[in-house]
């Protein structure tokens, strides 16, 4: 221990930290509601739990969202909060608002009761008598709500983290509940548990990389504050190897979370195995959050090192787009196909990150919001198409859906077209925004690859549409179960996808304003 540290000091020697509770309120509300949710689980009787948990979670998310709006409305100059641990600034508020709305929509799916998605009792063995009993007793595992709230809290914190320790804690707070939630599917429990194990082991593996990267950066700069690292790197003071290796390992952890190739392999397996509402939550909120963190790290921490990390990022973006689009073509499971599509979209989004400009930032923000709603809507439709064994996820079971229920098939087709980036959908506007930013940022080859990958991707989206509308329906095909909550989620996704395609300017302006001052340091 160095000599300057006094173990025993006089009272008041260590000043109380200054915490901006107002700026942190959205996160605090969500975490508070999560803790309350645990208390409800502890104290409320079984019949009451669901009835208390759902309104509680809704109220919490809504309150946090309203607070976020208020924060954005005040137009106060942003500065770092909580002694520099968190930065609540324009981009962060945009991302947090997006995450909260997307979480609200996901909550509609998670709270769906008419076609329950979650196991009655996670501890009961699949196929055992205990499981039968708990199912017939109509029990539901209501712990999913506090778990989800913890995850959402972590997601809010992740892009706001201004130092690597906070970021690591946020990463774990968002990941740990998700690992558990993945294993709670009501049907096909074996797949669900396998998804949880895989996600957990690989997630833990990746966070070890993240952490080691953070350690190396700490070794380089003597601090884990992003701004300190940036300042130290700006001086170019020795220890370059530490710095660059640290950046690389840190990136591995972040790229894992957003599913960039070659760190993507968990994504198809987990998306397929997890309960579909959780998949929707991961595909929308987690992606937004992970990109937020990535943007902050690269725009604040490593901005001065742009020329060092950009080539590697180029490579990752290119193979992510290509692998995602190409492998999706031969998928036969809808959820798996959407997972690969999500990988491809992560690649498109990375082109916006590579741009490293204000325009790239605002384009990425817009794309995240647009894609989040589209993908949530698509997964919501997946939950509606059911047969005796639960969701009919195999593509062949969707044959002729267009004739059996044209509206649902039409809506799904629309979501797919939006993901393919057809004009008049949000996907087009989003792709346009990030690609034009990348062109301006001198990444034209990347955009060429992106456009080619979109063309390949369009092929498999159209393939699903062809199956739905042109194949003959099976005799015992799945039926479409429409319930108010899920239908609301689909309608919300559809509305946003249309509005952001037809009248995107207000949201583009919003993203532009949010990005105008970039991140605080």
């Amino acid at each position, binding site marked *: 221990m160095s000599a300057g540290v006094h173990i025993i000091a006089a009272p008041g020697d260590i000043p109380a930290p200054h915490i901006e509770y107002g700026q942190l309120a959205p996160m605090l509300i969500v975490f508070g509601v999560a803790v309350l949710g645990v208390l409800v689980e502890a104290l409320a009787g079984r019949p009451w739990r669901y009835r208390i948990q759902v309104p509680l979670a809704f109220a919490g998310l809504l309150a946090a969202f309203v607070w976020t709006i208020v924060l954005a409305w005040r137009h106060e100059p942003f500065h770092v909060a909580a002694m520099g641990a968190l930065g609540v600034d324009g981009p962060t508020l945009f991302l947090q608002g997006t995450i909260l709305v997307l979480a609200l929509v996901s909550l509609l799916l998670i709270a769906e009761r008419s076609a329950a998605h979650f196991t009655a009792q996670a501890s009961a063995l699949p196929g055992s008598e205990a499981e039968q009993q708990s199912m017939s007793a109509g029990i539901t595992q209501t712990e999913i709500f506090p778990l989800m709230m913890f995850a959402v809290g972590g997601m809010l914190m992740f892009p706001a983290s201004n130092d690597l320790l906070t970021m690591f804690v946020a990463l774990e707070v968002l990941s740990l509940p998700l690992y558990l939630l993945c294993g709670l599917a009501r049907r096909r429990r074996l797949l669900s548990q396998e998804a949880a194990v895989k996600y957990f082991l690989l997630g833990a593996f990746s966070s070890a990389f993240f952490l080691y990267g953070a350690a190396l950066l700490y070794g380089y700069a003597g601090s884990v504050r992003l701004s300190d690292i940036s300042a130290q790197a700006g001086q170019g003071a020795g220890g370059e190897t530490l710095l660059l290796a640290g950046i690389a390992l840190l990136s591995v952890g972040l790229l894992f979370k957003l599913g960039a190739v070659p*760190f993507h*392999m968990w994504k198809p397996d987990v998306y397929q195995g997890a309960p579909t509402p959780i998949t929707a939550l991961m595909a929308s909120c987690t992606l937004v959050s992970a990109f937020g963190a990535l943007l902050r790290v690269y725009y604040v921490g490593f901005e001065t090192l742009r020329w060092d990390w950009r080539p590697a990022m180029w490579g990752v973006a290119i193979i992510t787009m290509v692998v995602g689009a190409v492998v999706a073509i031969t998928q036969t499971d809808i959820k798996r196909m959407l997972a690969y599509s999500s990988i491809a979209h992560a690649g498109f989004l990375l082109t916006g990150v590579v741009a490293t400009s204000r325009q790239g930032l605002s384009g990425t923000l817009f794309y995240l919001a647009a894609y989040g709603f589209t993908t949530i809507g698509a997964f919501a439709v997946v939950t509606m198409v059911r047969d005796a064994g639960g969701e009919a996820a195999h593509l062949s079971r969707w044959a002729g859906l267009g004739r059996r229920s044209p509206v649902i098939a039409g809506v799904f087709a629309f979501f797919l077209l939006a993901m393919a980036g057809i004009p008049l959908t949000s996907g087009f506007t989003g792709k346009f925004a990030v690609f034009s930013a990348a062109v301006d940022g001198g990444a034209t080859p990347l955009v060429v690859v992106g456009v080619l990958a979109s063309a390949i991707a369009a092929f498999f989206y159209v393939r699903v549409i062809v199956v739905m509308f042109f194949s003959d329906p099976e005799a015992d095909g799945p039926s479409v179960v429409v319930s108010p909550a899920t239908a609301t989620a689909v309608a919300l996704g559809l509305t946003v996808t249309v509005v952001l395609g037809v009248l995107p300017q207000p949201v583009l302006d919003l993203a532009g304003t949010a990005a105008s001052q970039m991140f605080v340091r």
Partner: protein
Amino acid sequence: MKAEGIQAVAWLLIALPLAGAAILLLGGRRTDKWGHLLGTGMSLGAFVVGLAMFVQMLGYDPEERRRTIHLYEWFTVGHFKLDMGLLVDPLSISFVLLITGVGSLIHIYSIGYMAEDDDRRRFFAYLNLFVAAMLLLVLADNYVGLFIGWEGVGLASYLLIGFWQHKPSAATAAKKAFVVNRVGDLGMVIAISLMFATFGTVSFTQILGEGAHHLGMVEQVGQGTATAIGLLLLLGACGKSAQLPLQSWLLDAMEGPTPVSALIHAATMVTAGVYLIVRSGPIFELAPDAQLAVTIVGAATLLAGAIIGCGKDDIKKALAGSTMSQIGYMVLAAGLGPAGYVFAIAHLIAHGFFKAGLFLGAGSVMHGMKNDVNMRHYGGLRTMMVITWATFGLGYLAIIGFPGLSGFFTKEGIIAAAFDKGGTSGMILGGCALLGAAITAYYMSRVMFMTFYGERRWEEDVHPHESPKVMTVPLMLLALGSLFAGGFLVLGSFGHFLEPVVGGGEAHGFHLITAPGIAAFVLMVIGVAIAWRQYGARKVPREAPAGSFLTVAARKDLYGDAINESLIMRPGQWLTRLAVYFDNKGVDGLVNGLAAGVGGTSGRVRRLQTGFVRSYALSMFLGAAVVVAALLVVNV
């Protein structure tokens, strides 16, 4: 210039039928009772608006007839800006009148034709949707708007071809139309992207300039870019307008209800390609190679369509072949530059009237013949359905170019313009057009004679009868159009009307007696005479005879599908097998070679996803190593 008066609400044109479609689709069964009336009303409403706009336009000076309606700013990203707006000028108003006019007549006709169908409401909803999309296509003031309408009409067309889904042939035909059209759309998408990348905008005004004076940004780009854009646009036009080599879907599309064939697959949608080429005139004028390609496609299709028309016994398919051929004429004319534009559009409008009349007449015949489409089962229907015979006959005379009727003026104009192009290419193109005229006379006479003349060949239990008034009145109105439209357009001042848009006003004079005109007339008479010898004077067998090589080829659509298969599909599959030496059964939905190649790669790459956590971890570990190495190497 900004639009005023009724033109300022041009969006009503699109909104009315769109609202109709929305009400009918969302209203469901509740609207069954009055759905068809609402649909027809919306279409008529759009026609009235269109007419008012036309009258208002006539009041302006020719130079001031180009009016824009700015709807809203779609979005701005960086220095790219996309505005949504409409463009009302003589070219678009001509289309508006054709679409809403003929469209309304067909709506009325459908009330009778679809009376027995349980899903009549849905049918009208789709028709309204089509009208709205088609109007957007011709009214949009930029390529993206045009493309949205383009996709919209494709969607409506697909829905209507497959309207009777219970028929497997209808479902297959819809699928085929869908797939083939995607090839064309790909061309459009790339063309639009290219324009966006080159000009930073997709607005007609900015790219093409204001009407005939041009002065758009396109004049500043090199010939290479213009040629590339032109060829890609041509690919798009080929898909939508059933031109070689993307013609194969149109014949199958006849599986749809007959009013659909009349409206979409004869009068309006399939002419969108011609509109696209004429609208993009300034691009093509800068790219002679692309222009030449347009004329070649047109000439080849006009012959191929005509030959196919000769071999078909199905009355609708014979007419479909004829549609291909007639659009070939228009495309040919559109490829001739300003000299041909006016004739292309005039022929398009005249064709809209007489071909719609012919199709509706065919529908009327089918209505009386228990939906039998085989002309060998008809014969001598002249006395049974007099009105149908008379109106069909007028349409027939118009299409073969009988002097004085619509087709005569417009087609002669195209033939003359082709010869006027001069040089060897002019002679060849003119020759093709002349030959096409002769074949047209032959196969249309064949249809006429087999259907309405000769002895009766129908079964005992068929009782041919005239159709109800609601069907015959539109027939008569369209027959009037067949009589006069062409002459009115060509002899009238249509050329001057369009001149502010397409230019070249002085070239449009029409001379009654020219050498090509006389040749065309003689060839037409010969064609009719041969048909009379074969089908009018002789007995027509109920079963089709074996026929010569050419007949067999024509019956099989000139082996279009076989050629597609052996040229595109087979080598593609072969390549795939080479590239992917294991059997990839998973790749079943892939239709062409490129896709199969990508699919093969995909099938291979997905095997890397072994399902073992440890191999995933390995990939992450190696990935991390590569990323670290990449960063360090870059720094060295």
